[in-house]
């Protein structure tokens, strides 16, 4: 029974997805909100099981599914992501003509995929999770069936994603062929001497990394991201910018950190990853600078944040990585939920000019968005600053000073475009088109939670940091 508990968080989510999907078929069109609550309950149940499994190191399927503290921590993060997305969608779905039942079921499935990805050290299981996540996300990004941008996003995501999936499997085949195992640790045991990994295996590893890079949206595999993030419905965008990124980075972290500590590998991987991280930060930030749409700008900024997160991976600094991910979840979801709050039936106001005068007409919303943007830009005393502080100082401690300099210069660029939004909201005299008609308590709850997270984690992250550090004292 205790080993079966390892499956409990997963079962809660998946059965929730199935129940939501089935009951959706029998529900009247008019009010689908109960489905959202159902999905939220499934996530909360999963959260309950996650917290109960803490410190128990449960495993199942002969260790194929391993709930160590690192995995549990990330699973908890995914559950929060799921909850935020569902709360955001309750009103949004009705307003934009989305099917809430489908959305909730798909989000739950995608969350299940994320959970699987992080709770295994077996390549094949990781791939299963990845595919579950991918299929659900393709459908999610195309949920606005009548909207061309949304369909385009789904098609692009599907095409690119399939290629990435194929790369992953092909890479896996090569790794398996050369090392004879599908386990991370076995690969390392064979590769520890450096000679163990045959050229074919190295190519395989490269392909796997590329596929993961695609999921995380790091340069040069980020081209799909802006279109998909912009075209997808806003709550889905929140999911896509945080969820796959978190899972992909976690897998990357588990895979790379032992490699980076190995002499022959680190000589190749450290410079390569440093270059990729710097490229990602600058590509994301420079492109964001030129955007006219806030949503697209945030999409590019999300790419830049992948770059910062990669810095933590390169430094092998797990606690900072997870802390940054959690902080990014709150500030990013907060910024997008303001955009969701401004949307009206069939229209999404996401252009920069739409925000003009928001500071006067909706001072509360504008103030919240300002806090989120300042946090994204890394101003103290918000959490964004503390997250950057931990990540970059970890990099410097490991000797990556040049990377840290590149990272702070990239953040300077980002300050320019985040501030541009604030300028439009507060310092322009003309009026934007945004009129907020209906109250949306669930969304306001999300905004409040994100605000709370963004401020509180910047000032008193005490317990969270302790938990995160605990989680890493056991792994690696």
């Amino acid at each position, binding site marked *: 029974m205790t080993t079966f508990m390892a499956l409990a968080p997963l079962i809660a989510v998946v059965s929730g997805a199935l129940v939501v999907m089935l009951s959706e078929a029998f529900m009247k069109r008019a009010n689908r909100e109960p489905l959202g609550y159902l999905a939220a309950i499934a996530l909360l149940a999963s959260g309950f099981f996650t917290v109960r499994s803490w410190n128990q190191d449960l495993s199942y399927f002969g260790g194929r599914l391993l709930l160590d503290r690192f995995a549990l921590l990330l699973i908890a993060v995914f559950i929060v992501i799921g909850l935020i997305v569902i709360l955001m969608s309750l009103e949004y779905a009705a307003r934009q003509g989305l099917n809430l039942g489908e959305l909730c079921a798909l989000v739950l499935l995608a969350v299940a995929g994320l959970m699987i990805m992080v709770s295994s050290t077996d390549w094949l299981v990781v791939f299963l999770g990845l595919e579950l996540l991918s299929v659900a996300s393709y459908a999610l990004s195309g949920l606005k069936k009548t909207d061309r941008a949304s369909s385009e996003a789904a098609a692009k995501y599907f095409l690119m994603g399939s290629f990435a999936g194929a790369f992953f499997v092909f890479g896996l085949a090569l790794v398996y062929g050369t090392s004879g195992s599908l386990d991370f640790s076995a690969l390392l045991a064979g590769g520890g001497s450096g000679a163990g990994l045959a050229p074919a295996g190295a190519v395989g590893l490269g392909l796997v990394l590329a596929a993961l890079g695609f999921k995380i949206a790091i340069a040069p595999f980020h081209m799909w991201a802006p279109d998909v993030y912009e075209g997808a419905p806003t709550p889905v965008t929140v999911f896509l910018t945080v969820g796959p990124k978190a899972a992909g980075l976690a897998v990357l972290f588990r895979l790379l950190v032992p490699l980076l500590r190995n002499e022959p590998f680190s000589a190749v991987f450290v410079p390569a990853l440093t270059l990729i991280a710097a490229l990602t930060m600058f590509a994301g930030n420079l492109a964001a600078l030129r955007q006219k749409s806030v949503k697209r700008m945030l999409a590019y900024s999300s790419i830049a944040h992948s770059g910062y997160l990669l810095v933590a991976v390169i430094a092998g600094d797990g606690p900072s990585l997870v802390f940054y991910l959690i902080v990014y979840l709150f500030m990013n979801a907060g910024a997008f939920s303001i955009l969701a709050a401004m949307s009206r039936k069939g229209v999404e106001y996401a252009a920069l000019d739409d925000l003009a005068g928001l500071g006067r007409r909706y001072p509360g919303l504008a103030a919240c968005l300002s806090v989120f943007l300042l946090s994204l830009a890394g*101003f*103290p005393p918000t959490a964004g600053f503390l997250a950057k502080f931990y990540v970059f100082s970890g990099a410097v401690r490991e000797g990556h000073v040049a990377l840290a*300099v590149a990272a702070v*210069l990239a953040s300077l660029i980002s300050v320019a475009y985040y501030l541009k939004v604030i*300028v439009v909201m507060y310092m322009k005299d003309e009026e934007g088109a945004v009129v907020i008609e209906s109250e949306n308590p669930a969304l306001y709850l999300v905004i409040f939670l994100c605000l709370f997270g963004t401020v509180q984690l910047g000032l008193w992250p005490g317990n969270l*940091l302790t938990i995160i550090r605990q989680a890493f004292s056991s792994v690696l």
Partner: protein
Amino acid sequence: MNAMTANLPLASIVTFLPLAGALLLVFYRRESVKAIRTAALAISLLTFACSLLLFFGFDGKAGTPEFVEHAPWLGRGLDYHVGVDGISLFLVLLAAFLTPLALLSSRRAINDRVKEFSFFMLVLETAMIGVFVSLNLFLFYVFWEAMLIPMYFLIGLWGGRRRVYATTKFVLFTMFGSLLMLVGIFVLYAAYHRVTGNFSLTIADLAGTALSPALQTWLFLAFGLAFAIKVPLFPLHTWLPDAHVEAPTAGSVLLAAVLLKMGAYGFLRLGIPLFPQAAASFAPALSILAIVGIVYGGLMALVQKDMKSLVAYSSVSHMGLIMLAVFSLNFEATEGALYQMLNHGLSTGALFLCVGILYERTHTRLIKDYGGAAARMPVFAAIFLVSVLSSAGLPGLNGFVGEILCFFGIFASNKLLAAIGVSTVILSAAYLLWLFRRVMHGPLKDPDGLLRDVDRRELATLVPIVVLIVLMGLFPGTILRKMDASVSRYIESIRTTAPAALSWKVPAPPNEAIPLAGETER
């Protein structure tokens, strides 16, 4: 410290009282402008009262920080650690003194979004004081960066026509420097960890870390760039005239009076004590930049058409003198620099307030639009004249004491630099008195009869500064005595950690202040 203040966490109270007040303002109704203004003013006055308790409770004989509070915060060296010593005490006082005056001065000028304005002013006060009281590098940086946010909004929301450009430039410029300083902090943090095995960002701990000369040089450059931009040192000053001209009066006052001091304070608190050898080797170069700034700022001020940009360039020039004194690395010059920082805060603050008063009447800041105003505004003319003379360093007023101390110190370290630096006295007398003559004397230019003399509220903003200008000119001992021990400790620490630090100067100066008139009791 007497019994009453001993148990109070005064340093924290002074720092966070304005922030608490700002959060209180959030709950006021937007329409009750009057109540908001009164509340903001009351809070800032209360803060000033608390800072006076700091002043009277401050002993200053040991030269170590007093009112120290140390508590764990984020762990791993990122502690909450505050306190004041002779170097920071008066800058805290300056910030606490000028904020209520700036708030009072904006009663008429700011009518739009008063709630937000008061909110940001109070947040700015917390950030400014926080920078000065921080004894932990992390805390220092948090306040240092956080300060940009309220200032960004103050210039951007209530500024002039080109406010968006000016405020963006201000933020990006200062952030460029401070982000590199952040990397410097990381390196220092890692170096301390490597040497001792512990995590600490307490400034006093870091000052003793053994760093290789190359590392010191890099770190000094990283920190120095941030501070030099803030000062601003020539040629990094270009953000300053823009920001000053576009900022609302209250913003200009705090920007000139307090924010500019942070660069010099950063050198005194961090740049020089943490990296004394590097500081000594860069001192000649930085002194030359300071000299260029003195002359360039003065010449630019001479040709300005706009009163505000004239005062802004005069700041470049005066801050150049302060930096020159700081880099003389001896007792008199350092004390003079500190004193001059306070003087500049007061006199430039007063000048900006005066320009603001003129602007509120006529809505122009161009010098050519004025003339003979003294006839219509006799009281104002007197106050304006005192501010001008204080800025120009007239004996008997505060500016003279600071300048003479600075020059004693600079002369002891390098006679040539002192000789060129003295030009600031001539230049500032020239552009300021010429400004005064053109605006206040000559044929009256007031076709619409707009020039009224100052009312009671405006007097209330200006008179405290003028009184202080005179008092600081007559009784410098009261202030200097509280600085002495901290400054000599600072000089001592440079000399012991880096004996070579002072080698570029010819004679080692005596370690005692030159007695000044009116302070025989020292």
